[in-house]
């Protein structure tokens, strides 16, 4: 056993010189292996951290820290390819192995001959001593690193480009001693650069997608606001299945509550039967030809309300064969507008009717004035004066939207036109509302009385006066026109237009009686007119 032990010892001793080399190589290999394992572990850790990054800066920081450790660089940096307004420098960066203050005093990195290959994506720059590189120190004013710059001799710079070839930035490593970076280091860092590029791209795509989602949500909110403020409902029809989706406002337009179901069949049922065939034809045309759908129609709500709707829509999705898959659009309750249009039409018709009736009235005044004047030369004055009397009453009625005028107003207007308003006194308890028709007839009657008075009666002398008095007696207006202090009155030789208008026209139109007497003391006109023929319809 002892000899064996000795032998073993001796043998070991005998091989000592040889073994020393082997052992030291083995130790070196073990160190190297340990170093490789450490690098691999670092690389794996960095790769994992990079892949799970959600933030570009954090991702970049992990990479430059990790790479600096793996390749044994003193300093590491990442410069983003974000070109300043001068187009020459790169302002944003992350650092490793140096405090930001070490760079803070210097201006931004410029696109010098040393940096250009990196930022132009031309390839890797690896130098055992960058200060000996022919590209180094070529740029004024500093011709090399600024004073106080981190001492860099070993230099490794890698462009970081995405799959589209866009240069995102550059990874830069340095060491104060020369010859520190190997081809293997270069390969490692190039691989990490590719990881950084992929991760930055992914982060950007995610951020873009998130931003787009936010924009879409905002657009949708804006659309909903616009639809709601415009009281517009929105709808969507699947052509093949006839599945119909309606917004709350759209349902409201059809008299449905938001929680009620409302399908395509309900929609068609709600359309007024007279409008239904036209609408179905329009829908079919929009589906068949992809034509815009733009229709107005009546709907009958479940509670019986009749409303007008305006619906617009168009093909929202087109199938590969060119057929329409979905129709989408809006609906709006236009009942108010439709009613206003109907009112407008009614008003225009009514206006036309009034104009035509007024023309017939003027025609009548012209014809009868011509009949009653003694000679054609008196026509013009008589006709014009009657035309103006008619116009006075129209002015009054227009002021009150042709709803009527009061008896006192009508008399005042006519007396004013004859400049006789200060010669007339009134005696009555209550004024009376007159319909437009009654106002025109009485206005013309008063005009005839006043004209006669100013020509032959009380208003033809300075002292003559007129009294207008009325009472209401069992729904009959009893009005008297009494002239006094004028010249002695003679009955006229012929009965003119005025008398005829008063005694026949006015009496017949207002279903009453008018009696004109030529008392020597002055003309007296008695009118007995039923209120129902005078007052406006209520």
């Amino acid at each position, binding site marked *: 056993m002892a000899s064996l032990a000795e032998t073993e010892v001796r043998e070991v001793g005998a091989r000592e010189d040889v073994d020393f080399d082997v052992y030291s190589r083995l130790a070196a290999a073990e160190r190297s292996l340990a170093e490789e394992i450490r690098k691999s572990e670092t690389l794996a850790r960095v790769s994992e951290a990079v892949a799970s990054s959600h933030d570009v800066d954090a991702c970049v920081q992990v990479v430059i820290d990790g790479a600096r450790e793996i390749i044994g660089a003193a300093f590491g940096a990442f410069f983003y390819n974000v070109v300043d307004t001068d187009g020459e420098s790169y302002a944003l960066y992350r650092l490793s192995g140096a405090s930001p203050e070490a760079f803070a005093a210097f201006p931004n990195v410029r696109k010098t001959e040393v940096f250009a290959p990196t930022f132009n994506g031309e390839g890797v720059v690896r130098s055992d001593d960058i200060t000996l590189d022919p590209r180094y120190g070529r740029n004024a004013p500093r011709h090399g690193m600024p004073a106080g710059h981190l001492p860099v001799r070993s230099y490794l710079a890698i462009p970081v480009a995405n799959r589209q070839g866009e240069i995102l930035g550059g990874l830069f490593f340095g060491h104060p001693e020369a010859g520190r970076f190997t081809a293997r280091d270069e390969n490692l860092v190039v691989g990490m650069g590719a990881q950084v590029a992929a991760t930055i791209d992914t982060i950007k795509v995610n951020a873009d997608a998130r931003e787009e989602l936010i924009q879409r949500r905002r657009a949708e909110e804006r659309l909903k606001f616009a639809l709601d403020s415009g009281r517009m409902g929105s709808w969507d029809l699947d052509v093949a299945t006839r599945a119909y989706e309606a917004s709350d406002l759209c349902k409201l337009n059809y008299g449905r509550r938001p929680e009620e179901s409302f399908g395509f069949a309900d929609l068609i049922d709600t359309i007024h039967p007279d409008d239904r065939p036209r609408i179905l034809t329009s829908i079919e045309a929009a589906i068949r030809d992809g034509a815009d759908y733009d229709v107005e129609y009546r709907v009958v709500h479940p509670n019986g309300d009749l409303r007008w709707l305006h619906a617009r829509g168009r093909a929202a999705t087109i199938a590969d064969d060119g057929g329409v898959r979905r129709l989408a659009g809006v609906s709006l309750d236009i009942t108010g507008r439709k009613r206003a249009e109907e009112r407008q039409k009614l008003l225009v018709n009514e206006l036309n*009717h009034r104009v035509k009736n007024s023309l017939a009235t003027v025609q009548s005044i012209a014809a*009868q004035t011509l009949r009653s004047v003694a000679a054609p030369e008196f026509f013009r004055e008589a006709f014009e004066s009657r035309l103006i009397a008619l116009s006075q009453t129209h002015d009054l009625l227009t002021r009150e939207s042709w709803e009527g005028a009061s008896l006192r107003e009508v008399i005042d207007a006519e007396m004013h036109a004859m400049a006789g308003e200060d010669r007339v006194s009134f005696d009555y308890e209550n004024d009376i509302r007159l319909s437009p028709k009654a106002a*025109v007839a009485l206005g*013309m009657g008063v005009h005839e009385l006043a004209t006669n008075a100013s020509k032959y009666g009380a208003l033809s002398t300075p002292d003559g006066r007129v009294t207008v008095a009325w009472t209401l007696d069992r729904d009959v207006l009893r009005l008297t026109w009494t002239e006094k202090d004028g010249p002695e009155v003679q009955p006229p030789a012929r009965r003119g237009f005025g008398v005829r208008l008063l005694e026949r*026209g006015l009496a*017949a*139109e*207002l279903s009453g009686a008018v009696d004109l007497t030529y008392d020597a003391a002055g003309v007296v006109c008695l009118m007995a007119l039923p209120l129902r*023929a005078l007052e406006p*319809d209520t």
Partner: protein
Amino acid sequence: MKTLSALKVLVVEDEALVSMLVEDMLTDLGCTIVGPAAEIEEALRLATSADIDAALLDVNLGGRPIFPVADALRARGVPYAFASGYGEAGISEDHKGASVLQKPFREADLRRVLEGLVSQTA
């Protein structure tokens, strides 16, 4: 064709001045005037019971449509024409086709319409 002379024409018109004009025209044409009526009730009474050959009806009588009077005349077989500021547009659906005089109208227009009415019953 009957002559218009001595034709008894019911006049329904609520505006005094227009009524007077129509009366003058009818008198010039040799017709005899029945009415004029300015109210629906009076017009209906005359349309159903008076001795008349034809009628001229204002479409709108103080805001009330004249059509019940037209119906009464149709039931009796008395020909009638409308006089209206609305023209044809103011005529109700079941009276479309009746003669319409658009106000204002000339005496010759009234004569033509009356001759048309008379020939209907000839």
